[in-house]
């Protein structure tokens, strides 16, 4: 349970309900203060979308009794292929290296599907998903510079 509230920002308390505990954006408070509200909103929006996709992924793993797999691999979702030490993960998890590769690959793909699904719910036309993701990426870039 997160207790050090001062160290983390919950941008919109209450509006995220129970999810808020996980929504800790490591942006210095001063930076947030200086952001215009619209930008701040986009930041939270982006984080929420990502959080939701991750949460769904986590629960899909958990419902199959594979939360341990999620916990071990989710931090490598965005790693480049050569950044991942499959041998280390294999030793940690006690499963074959090939199995680690396969699981991480599929977890990535599934995460992508979930993320796109989350974003598609927020745009009028499903074809806008890519644009929306790019827009949010751009917002993040300018918002946290």
């Amino acid at each position: 349970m997160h207790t050090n509230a001062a160290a983390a920002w919950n941008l919109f308390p209450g509006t995220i309900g129970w999810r808020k505990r996980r929504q800790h954006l490591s942006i210095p408070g001063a930076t947030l203060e200086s952001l215009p509200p619209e930008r701040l909103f986009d930041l939270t929006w982006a984080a929420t979308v990502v959080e939701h996709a991750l949460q769904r992924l986590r629960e899909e793993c958990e419902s199959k009794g594979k939360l341990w797999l999620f916990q071990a691999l989710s931090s490598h979702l965005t790693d480049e292929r050569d950044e991942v030490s499959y041998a280390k993960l294999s030793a940690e998890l006690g499963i074959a290296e090939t199995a680690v590769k396969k699981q991480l690959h599929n977890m990535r793909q599934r995460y992508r599907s979930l993320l796109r699904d989350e974003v598609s719910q927020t745009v009028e036309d499903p074809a806008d998903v890519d644009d929306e993701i790019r827009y949010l990426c751009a917002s993040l870039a300018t918002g946290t510079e």
Partner: protein
Amino acid sequence: MRLDTGICVSCLLREGLEGGDDVSQAFYQTVLAEVDAPHKSWFLGNYEILEQIGCGGMGVIYRARQRHSRRIVAVKRVLSYRADSHEALERFRREAQAVASLDHPNILPIYEVSESEDGLPFFSMKFAEKGSLQENAASLRDEPRKCVQLMAKVAHAVEYAHSRGVLHRDLKPGNILLNDRGEPLVSDFGLAKLLDGNNDLTRSLTTFGTAGFIAPEQAGDAAVDLTPAADVYSLGAVLFNVLAGRPPFLGSNPVSVIRQASETQAPKLRSLAPSLDRDLETICARCLERDPKARYQSAGDLAADLERWLAGRPIVARPVSPPARIWRWSQRNPKLVGAATAGLLLGAAAVWLFRGELFRASQFNPPDRSIAVLPFTDSSEAKDQEYLGDGISEEILHTLAQVDGLRVAGRASSFSLKGKNTKEVGEKLNVGNVLEGSLQRQGNRVRVTAELIDARNGFRVWTETYDRELDSAFALQDEIARSIADALKIKFAVRLSAHEQPGNGVYDRYLQGLFTDVTHPTGVSRIGASVPVQNPSDPFTVPDYTSPGDFDPRRPDTRVTAAPPGTGFTTSVRDRASEAGLRTNKITADVIAAPPETAFNTSVRDRASEAGLRTNKITADVTAAPPETGFNTSVRDRALEAGLRTNKITADGPASLQGFVKDAKGEPIKGADVRIESRDGKQVFSTVKTDPKGRYISQGLQPGVYRVTLLVNGAVKASIMNTQTKANQPTQLNFDFKPTSQAGNTARRGKRMVWMPGRTGSHHRR
């Protein structure tokens, strides 16, 4: 920007732009299934998860080991996609706590209700070694007598829960577990309520699990208030199932099963199992009546009939004329006829001789709100903690004595009865409740156990154990006494009828949910935790306060007192809709309280309309009424800061919140719910309804900062953040709806403003 897991948000977003095929959930599950789980321990709170033992409608069940005691328990965890709203989770927590207070040998005990790191609730409960009735059904089928014995116990357990205001709603063989001795343990009490209220039948059915066991009225109109008869139906269906080897109705899908249950009479038990006794068939048929009124009126009645059958006596379900009843009985028990006749005569003589005693006993009818506090006994080996036990008792006594409307027996008379049984204490002091307890010291720790006993029947109403370090005896004494006294106030408040509510804030404290040990249906009602029972004799009827006549000024939570004259100051409300909740129909209001003598113009900056949100603009006027004594406060609560604070108490004394709700035409909205929540919305302190004039008032609040949410017909219309309330003065908060006709469908860059999944509140229709 990174999540607290350290992953960069941008990277996670960009991942969505990478190529690759869509991976469906089904496919991914097969991939997950490929990898075998080596033993990987992980923890949920204090529990080391050992293995998954089930996956129900709401979540996952694990076998787990308690970290320190090594005790093996079952841990049930709700998954958020099963309950995707804050309300549902909140209800889950309340329900679990209500169930945790049920204490019956045939109800699966819940040890702890807690929350995991990600904020999802879970609870730990006894691990039932022999699995469920479903798993044991085949072996039990050949022993109808054993089945009936088992079901009689189950019915007693259900009856007990009903008497505490908890309906099960999902009785089925899978929810009746067996301990190592084969004794039944009913699990999952009231939890089916979690996702109830959703009109989507398919979803309800998944929630309910097996459709064959729920009462027809339960599957129908979601608005129907269920009664214990719904559980009686399910008990009958379970009995039918264990005896016949299948539920009463079968079908290719849940909907067809429900339809059959609603439209046709249940098949006769003996048409499936001809060897069974006709009386069992009658008992099942009585439970499975489509009309709830035609069933046994209580689970206790069913239990009694099952026990009659076990004892070879005529059952009640099939009315038998009295002479025939005697004839049948005498046929079965020829030797007893003579003895019974003699017994009757003796009995009559005894009644006559001891009529005085009997009459006195029946006269023991103490006031419900009365209590005696016995000195807490010292069960330490050294027996050197008597002073602490006495001190705690005296402190509790002192605290309770200050509660209006609660009769507390005096110290001397109570303490003189130390060691007597509770019934005797109750009778001697004419009190309905007796609080007793014990304490035990081990090293520098002390464990205090308190029990509230209903003096009329000797049943334990409430119990709590406190484990504390013995640093300062006085502080400990104070703290425990206060905890117990507060919990008891809640208990008493729960058990009082609305008309008897003392206006001392005790009841309001209950409303605030400071203690959520809600064993009453008020905690599970569709209106919410705050609705008291108006008719204690029928705790399952939740009153509807929407009609004008229902507005009862005696009810603390609906009482409307006129706001103090407008000598107060006007505040400035800056609407940060675009910051905090544009897409979620949420309005964040910064409330700036100013010194009373200063007059401000109301300034409402509505960014929602700027951004083109297609919704009603909400004007929040927050006016603090003039304080009794002058103050000079300038509080500026920014929405951004809100997350860093908890509800803070600014001063002693109760605060209150009041105002009106008006629609776009300026007409009052009656029957709307105004919910007073913690700032993060995770805790609901009170829900009050607006009266026919659209007014509401919530009294007895702790002074502090709240989030106030308005719900009209169950839909969230507005949430006002950071509403500051102050001690001993009412705060005015009005909801005035004005449509913004110019608001368009599109906002920035043609993006459709929609509901953000998982956030609380409701979104407007497309």
